């Protein structure tokens, strides 16, 4: 699954750049995203669009809500590695992520914004995403988790779903 949160790039370019990622391609618009209805209509041709209505939701909770909704009847479903991108991603970064995901089914990689500490990139290998405990992990995330809780939460995910040699 590919989740682009408030993408910067024009949608045709985004589609062309990320077309190879396996699974459903999703755009998640946060509460503050100023996107017109017409723009959403355009996006729907190539992406599944999630619109989050809650004010000031952390990236991890956006991920939670997108994935759990995708897993409900009528949702697009979830399989394969998961790439979450907030804002933008270069072609080189995308290709690198795709290679890593294909090579390492248990990969868990995160990048945080230097200025604000917001999670801007998350890569989860297929073995993590398709583990039933991943859904449990997301379900148990409490409402009100802030960006400051993300690193700790991901550490928990790593502890429980990534084998330790």
């Amino acid at each position: 699954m590919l989740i682009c949160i408030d993408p910067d790039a024009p949608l045709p370019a985004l589609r062309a750049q990320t077309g190879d990622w396996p699974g459903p391609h999703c755009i998640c618009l946060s509460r503050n995203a100023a996107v017109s209805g017409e723009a959403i209509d355009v996006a729907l041709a190539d992406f599944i669009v999630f619109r989050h209505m809650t004010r000031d939701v952390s990236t991890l909770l956006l991920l939670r809500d997108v994935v759990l909704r995708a897993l409900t009847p009528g949702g697009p479903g979830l399989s394969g590695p998961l790439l979450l991108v907030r804002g933008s991603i270069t072609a080189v970064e995308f290709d690198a992520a795709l290679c890593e995901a294909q090579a390492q089914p248990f990969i868990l990689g995160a990048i945080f914004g230097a200025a604000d500490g917001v999670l801007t990139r998350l890569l989860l290998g297929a073995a993590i995403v398709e583990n039933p405990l991943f859904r449990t992990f997301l379900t148990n995330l409490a409402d009100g988790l802030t960006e400051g809780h993300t690193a700790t939460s991901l550490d928990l995910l790593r502890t429980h779903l990534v084998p330790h040699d």
Partner: protein
Amino acid sequence: MTELPDRAAQLWRDILAGNPVLEQRPDFREGGAPELAYAPMRDRLADLDARLRGLVRHPGVEALLDDGAEDAAELLHSLIALGAPVDARVSDFGSTHYLATYPEVAQAGVAPFSHYLQHGMAEGRITLRRLRDGLFPGSVPRREGRPRCLIALGATDESATARLALNLVRQAAATHDVTVAATNASSHLDRFREACCSVIVTPAPAQDFDALPAGVLDWLSLTLLVGTGATPFLRPLVDRDLPFAVYATEHTDEILPRWRALFPALFADLLVFPSEHVRASWSGLLADLGYDIGHDTLTLPPATLRPGGVKGENHANARRHLSHLLGLNIGARRLVVGAGVAHWRAGTDLFVMAAQAARSSDPDALFLWVGDGFDHESAAFGLWSDRHLREVGAGSGTNLHILPDGPVLADALAAADAFFHASRLDPLPTVAMEAVAQGCHVVAFSGASALSDPTHYGIDRLHCVPYGDIAAAGAALRAVPRKMPGDPAAPERDIFPVLAAALTERLASQRYFALGDGDFDVPILVSNRPAHAASRTRERRKVWTSRRRMVWPSADAARAELAASDSWVHRRISVSPFQWRAGDAPVPEFSLHLHAHHLGDLADDLAGYHAFRAARRLIVTTDTQGKAETIRRHLDRAKIDGEVFVMPNRGRDILPFLRLFWPSEGVSKVADDGLWAHVHLKKAIGTSPSGDIWRRFLMTILLGDATRLSSAVDLASQDGTGLIGAFDPYTSGWVGARRLLDSVTGLPAPLPERPLLFPMGNMFWAQGSAVTEMIRLFPPEYPWPAEPIGNDGTVYHLIERLWPSAAASLGLRSVFIEKRDQPRA
């Protein structure tokens, strides 16, 4: 301690096996909540044991009671007192169901079982017995691996909607295990039971669905609501995220109250219409909701015009039978048949008048109406039709006859040359379609039913005449040829598979999903109680996922929609956050108009809003001298200067306000360019506590409170501002006022498809120039409707929505103030 009776003790252990209560309380005669203890309750209620006997459901406990075992009643009482889920297992009392049905009991914090025993039973309050009595097995066994389908309707009666639902049940049963749910049963319940696996009858699905036996609603692959009588089933379906289609079998003209059309449309995943004619009546509502017509609706006629015929022998037999029933020899006379429950709607009176006219123009013709409803004591219709029939003559010796509904209808259609569909409005003209299948020509009024749908153009047996034109109908009937023998029509096709496939495809195509919750926790179907917060989130989320309009997710969403609009009105609307006015800044001069039809809250208003004292001029209008005197006394007590005027009771609060600006009124001259606040004490019939909350919402945002003013007065006094309103979390379209839009002339450009924002509740600040502009659009000589008026769709409802347009017409902006922490509902 005495030894426990063995059977009672054993039952206690058996029923509570695995329940932690058993460890804490091995003896049902000890422990437990004191307020629910058996002995004190028996002291209060001498007939407690009899009351308990009436509730028992567990066969073991019932046997114990039947045997007269000493502690049987105490055992039952103790079990029920444990609450859910034990209570519902052993009795017809379920505390969870009781509290869901009676929220005031929950709010009072009293033990539900205690309340029921001491009060509820005497008051006739509902228990699980009502639901359980409404569960009926069907004749069709459930089959392993079969998909399950729920079909819900209002009443299982003889209505066209119920007949349609029954046909759908029969069709669905070919491929699905069908459960039928209805709000009330009638004598035709058995027909539904014969066709399905089970029937649930409940007038309160929202309360009862949680108490259904486990598994009843599991694994539903398809849910269909037939007719707006099924609206009560919306809430439990939405609350469980169960998708569904709604088959809208009525024109919106006839659906009252309005929410019975609004909510099915708002929440349906697929909205199905029986004809383009019905769909057209819903178009305004769908436009208000922002419907994706192509994606979310389907026109699927339940029946089609299938020209057919009747074998000669059958035709002759039918005519002979009718001759016998009517006591005359029909012979070769032209036979014109009409049918339906006698009513203005069915045009029974028009049929009779056509028969009257035919006495001179077509003396050979015989007119026969088949239907019930001729109740000569009913002022709804029967009294008038009885008088009419007596005056013009019907029955023996005349050309007009009436037979009651029943099997004779089949003979009538087989025998008839023509069917006169005199209906004024008919969403399901199935009898007329059956008449065509039986070889009849059909004469109908254009625009009255699906017979006018374009798909029927060119069918030579269908003759549409101008609406209500009896003369034209008579001419068309005279021109109808005699029926010739013919072959039966092709069988009607099943529509259920088409509907099921359409719903499946609709759900599979969903690619937009709303998540989280917005800024405003306001109810739609669900109550505003804290316990229902999650349900309210689900219902809003469903609306937003369908991208329809009911509640703004946020003021930002409204701003975005205004910015995206190219309407000349919307370009001059903005949303601002609420602020309290700084106490020391000079207050702009303003006048305040209060229309006081009801005076109950007047004293509270005068004390509760500083604006009444801060106004340069306060005018209070009312409709009687007695009220005016009462108002003056209130003003004196509050030591507030104000002028009180009596106005005719016409136009609710709107016309009294506009009249202040009419030169002819004789009121001291009103400055056209002054700033005015307009509020009112009008209370609609049946105002609930939520109505009071809404009023406080508006008054606080617009005026402030007892000591402070809202900054609305400053915004309103700014250059370029014409109107200030409260930003309402609920959206509203033109609604019933849409029917009057074409009559509005004098605006610089067409009105937008949706108003988006307007002062809902008709309380606002306005520059006098904006009021004068409204008067230009609706001058004093306008034909103002008098009371009683409808709840929607009048010129007053239109004016409420046109205030931003009036301001924009002068190049003035309208500002709506958002106060997120002010409860709205």
